[in-house]
């Protein structure tokens, strides 16, 4: 219903809406660069238990030893010595907007967060640089035992739960950036949903990088107990600076027997953010894990949401959309690891490359011996807008079981001149025509978003398409 609105707001400016910056004052920030001392300081500031301090220090040692990944996007611009690893804007997360410092409140109000919370969310968490500045969950959910808070708060309040699960899905040694995150993590969301509890409205987190050359390393841990359901939505933005920032998150999800988790991301970082994220879920018997992953912004994104299908009948999905504008590289994909019989998975990836943008699909589909009757399907479609636009597909399949059904298809297409002419012959401008074709192309993914986000997504695409003609 919203296309006219989308077209009307075509002239909106990204810088106006997301690119503004605050003159923030920080209570504390570490000096640029990373050292054992910085890691210890972060732990000390947070007054963490010894086990977490050790967790960080072990991860730091691993980080030093791990080489930079060279198999994917170009990361030569990442300069670990220039980055500020921790910046604390407030001393604790507020429970009501009134308590949030004025300049931060203005930021999130401009981004529409409090309004969204009132309208359709069950809970909101807002992270500003390193720390969560606001966190709130509806009272009825809290009474049912649903926990929704920053991971820092969870370490203090629910140490047993955190200790039991953190680092079990994504080990601290998984890759260089997972190790880095484990060493310096701050903020992120912790969710626990008790057995049988269904959270009917989405829980949302909003991540904002404000400081220049900032590293944001949130750590998210979600546990859906048996038969539970939760939908978590995260959004990300940052101002435009000349110095690059780094976002290296780790997300771990445990979906127990018969539970279902949907995790939706709308990533719209500014084009100076390296976005290197490890997202992984364990799905047990009859559980369902769904990643809905939309990547529009960033300079470079490397992200391959994974589902380990560990119990009989578990189901995993990755529905992803990547938009690579001029100079951007979206290296995204999915991993489906079938370790149990009768597990099913679906990967649907849609990418758009505009101008000199490059979108890569990189996927792994693995079926272990003994995982009989697996059904898996992977489809990736790429749409190119210009002659210089680029797309690549790197699908890897390791199928070690005979009795399985595997489907795979990949398409590459260009926005057709005849399609553009057809739409223009009905009165749409060339830019509106191309925008409509692009929005139609990603519709199978966008229709999975809650309506408010679907509208926002169409609007973001329209913004990205501005000036793409001629």
């Amino acid at each position, binding site marked *: 219903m919203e296309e006219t609105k989308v077209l009307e707001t075509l002239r909106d400016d990204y810088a106006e809406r997301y690119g503004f910056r605050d003159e923030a004052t920080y209570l504390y920030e570490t000096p640029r660069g990373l050292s054992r001392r910085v890691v210890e300081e972060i732990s000390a500031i947070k007054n963490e238990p010894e086990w977490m301090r050790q967790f960080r220090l072990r991860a730091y040692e691993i980080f030093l030893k791990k080489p930079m990944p060279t198999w994917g996007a170009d990361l030569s611009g990442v300069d670990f010595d220039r980055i500020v690893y921790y910046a604390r804007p407030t001393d604790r997360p507020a429970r009501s907007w009134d308590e949030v410092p004025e300049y931060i409140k203005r930021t999130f109000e401009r981004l529409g967060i409090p309004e969204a919370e009132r309208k359709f969310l069950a809970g909101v968490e807002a992270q500003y640089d390193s720390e969560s500045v606001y966190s709130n969950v509806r009272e009825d959910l809290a009474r049912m035992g649903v926990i929704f808070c920053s991971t820092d708060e969870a370490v203090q309040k629910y140490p047993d739960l955190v200790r039991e699960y953190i680092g079990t899905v994504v080990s601290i040694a998984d890759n260089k950036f997972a190790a880095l995150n484990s060493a310096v993590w701050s903020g992120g969301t912790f969710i626990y949903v008790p057995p049988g509890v269904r959270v009917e409205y989405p829980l949302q987190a909003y991540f904002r990088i404000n400081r220049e050359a900032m590293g944001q390393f949130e750590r998210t841990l979600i546990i859906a107990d048996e038969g539970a359901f939760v939908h978590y939505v995260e959004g990300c933005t940052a101002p435009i600076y000349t110095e690059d920032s780094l976002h290296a998150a780790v997300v771990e999800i445990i979906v127990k027997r018969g539970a279902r988790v949907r995790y939706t991301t709308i990533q719209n970082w500014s084009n100076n953010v390296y976005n290197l994220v490890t997202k992984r879920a364990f799905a047990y018997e009859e559980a369902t894990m769904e990643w809905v992953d939309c990547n529009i912004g960033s300079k470079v994104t490397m992200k391959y949401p994974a589902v380990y299908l560990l119990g009989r009948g578990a189901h995993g999905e990755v529905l992803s959309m990547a938009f690579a504008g001029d100079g951007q590289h979206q290296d995204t994909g999915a991993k489906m690891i079938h370790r149990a019989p009768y597990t099913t998975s679906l990967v649907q990836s849609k990418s758009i490359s505009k101008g000199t943008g490059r979108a890569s699909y990189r996927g792994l589909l693995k079926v272990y011996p003994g995982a009989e009757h697996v059904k898996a399907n992977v489809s990736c479609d790429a749409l190119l807008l210009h002659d210089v636009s680029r797309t690549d597909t790197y699908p890897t399949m390791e199928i070690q079981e005979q009795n399985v059904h595997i489907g795979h298809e990949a398409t590459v297409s260009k926005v057709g001149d005849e399609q553009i002419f057809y739409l223009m*012959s009905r*009165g749409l401008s*060339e830019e509106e*025509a191309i925008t409509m074709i692009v929005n*139609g192309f990603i519709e199978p993914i966008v229709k999975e978003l809650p309506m408010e986000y679907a509208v926002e997504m169409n609007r973001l695409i329209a913004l990205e398409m501005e000036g793409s003609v001629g």
Partner: protein
Amino acid sequence: MADLEIRDLRVAVEGNEILKGVNLAVNKGEIHALMGPNGSGKSTLAYALMGHPFYEITGGEVWFKGQNILELEPDERARLGLFLAFQYPQEIPGVTVSKFLRAAVNARRQAMGLEPYGPYEFGLILNEKMERLRIDPSFAFRALNEGFSGGEKKRMEILQMSLLEPEMAVLDETDSGLDIDALRIVADGVNSLVGPNMGVLVITHYQRLLNYIQPHFVHVLMDGRIVRSGGPELALELEARGYDWLRAELESTATA
């Protein structure tokens, strides 16, 4: 001057001149049929009128509502009130008929200084128009032309025409690929729109469609020129005798 006036229009495709000086005048309230053998340039004329970039204008003018529209982009021509029903409508995956049509109708309304329709209001109008063309309401929520049969696509073109209310409509081989029932529905749709506010140029290879949409004027295009114009009886003559006699006649006149 006529409402649509084509003057000495010359069009080339990849350097080959296809239209070699076409003159034609169509007024609102009139139905003109343009007939001709395959390869005579009929579809070239349709595309050139709408402004397809593949067709290079090498000479001439097309006047519509006080402007030489050859200087306008296709979307500007459309918003001015020119419409082309395509022989091969494009499929646009993921874009629903209703979403597309509302955007198109509102683009035209805004150009006319009218308020754009809201979704609910437009839904009612769309429903009514679809009913009249006997299109199942579920089509509003299907992707535009995707997986539609030939007949469904043609009906969709007429639906678009009925919503956009053009002042001048060009129907390019709208009868091709239609069975007799579909043909009748499409023709009824066109006839219900024809009136003092709209002129129509029907491009067709066969006379068949003209049994249902009765033209006031018939023109024959051959080798890039209009070689004969007449009343409805000309179409019947072509149906009975084919195009060869006309060619022979023209050649004998030329050599005489």
